[in-house]
């Protein structure tokens, strides 16, 4: 009974923290477009907080610069359970155009923290990001929550 109630609450209220680990900012702009009235992220009960301590979902963009190696792991540790990580754009997946020979890019992000969902594209369309968050977010959070309890 309590689990069921928690599941419903968690599914309908997802708090998101956006982390840019050294990209071109293009994917972040697409996330901002998601917040606009056209896509209206908040009608799904998703809130962008930019505070890992309040977040259920970490949105990772960027290609993992040198300085982010330990800091990303710290942010991941600060996020309360249950936590879901969504990698947005090609940078966290392969390093994209930044992953040239001799560059200090430590992609993919999944080498450093566990990643639950990936959205490819450079940048992905806002609708693709929204679909990914909705597809993975509520159920994964509910499932994680049950595991923990």
């Amino acid at each position, binding site marked *: 009974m309590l689990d069921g109630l928690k599941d419903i609450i968690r599914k309908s209220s997802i708090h998101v923290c956006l982390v840019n680990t050294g990209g071109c900012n293009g994917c972040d702009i697409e996330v901002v477009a998601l917040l606009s009235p056209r896509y209206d992220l908040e009608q799904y009960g998703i809130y962008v907080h930019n505070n890992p301590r309040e977040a259920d979902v970490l949105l990772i963009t960027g290609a993992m610069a040198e300085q982010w190696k330990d800091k990303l792991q710290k942010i991941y540790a600060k996020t309360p359970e249950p936590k879901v990580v969504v990698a947005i754009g090609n940078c966290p997946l392969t390093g*994209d155009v930044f992953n040239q020979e001799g560059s200090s890019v430590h992609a993919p992000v999944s080498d450093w923290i566990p990643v639950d969902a*990936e959205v*490819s*594209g450079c940048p992905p369309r806002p609708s693709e990001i929204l679909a990914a968050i909705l597809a993975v977010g509520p159920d994964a959070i509910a499932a994680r929550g049950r595991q923990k309890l």
Partner: protein
Amino acid sequence: MSSVIWYLYEFARKSWAENFAAAKSDKEIMDAPDRFRNFPEVHKEYCIACGACTAACPAPMAIKLVRDEDNAHEDGFTYPVINNRGCIRCGFCAEVCPTDPKTLTCGENHLIREDFTILPVDKKFVIDDYLCIRCKKCMKTCKVGDAIVEEDNKIVIDQSKCISCGECLKTCPVKGAIKGIHISNVEEQKEIINLVVNSLEAKIEAEQDKIKDIVGSDVYSFDISAVELIEDAKKILDDDELIDDIIENITDRLKLRVITWDKDKCTNCRLCVKECPSGAIKYTSEEGVVRNPDKCLRCSICYQTCPFGAIGYYISRFLYKRDEAEKIIHVTVKTSDLPVRS
């Protein structure tokens, strides 16, 4: 008070309850528009494995050429594979793909075609930089104004502006420096060029005995009738003006090198046999030293090697007289400027 009533009214609406229970964005907002350039599509049967797409791709992990395994009946396909996790959807791979139809297609906005003139002309004018003396007379007479430009100390014709009027050709003081090239029937034109050059060479080889007598700065000249040549060329492509133009363009520029061989002076020392880079000179005990003209490169190394003067090296040039009643090619042969070993 009225605001509370408005809130109650809003919450009582059915659409509000529906949106609250199951939020959904409109389909037209979620769908990608037609102009959206998505990941490239690969049609592997057209691929020629040139690798232009991999060279043009700005993302290091995005594109890779792979080859299918061969089976008993046919060879495996070679084709590019797009990694969606690396591709940035720029469309450069589709832009550079040289096959027709394209192996890679990606949106419509990157299909760039070469500049071309839309005028219905069959000739294109070009400047031969080797013969051009940079007098710039053509630039002054050009009717378009800026179709002939100076670029990097060379005079060039901008093909996107040229209207093919041919005025520059009339004012050019050097014969052959500006030439009109026919755009169509390129394969037939190549055949005619081969025919003309080969028959001219055969005609000169036939005159060997007279060429051998040239000494010092003497010039030996003779005329070849072009009628037969034109008849042969007409069998390939029946176009009088085109054939005349081709022969004129070739002869303006052509410089044939001639090697003569004086059997009487040859002492069979076989120095030239070793030096010949193409193996055209052979020695047999019955025939002595023999040169095979089909294999010969006319490089003149044998001429420079021979200590007895058995080999001669001459240069021939041509002038095509197309305006006379019987069309002739005037040939002049003279000794080369290379130093002679005594």
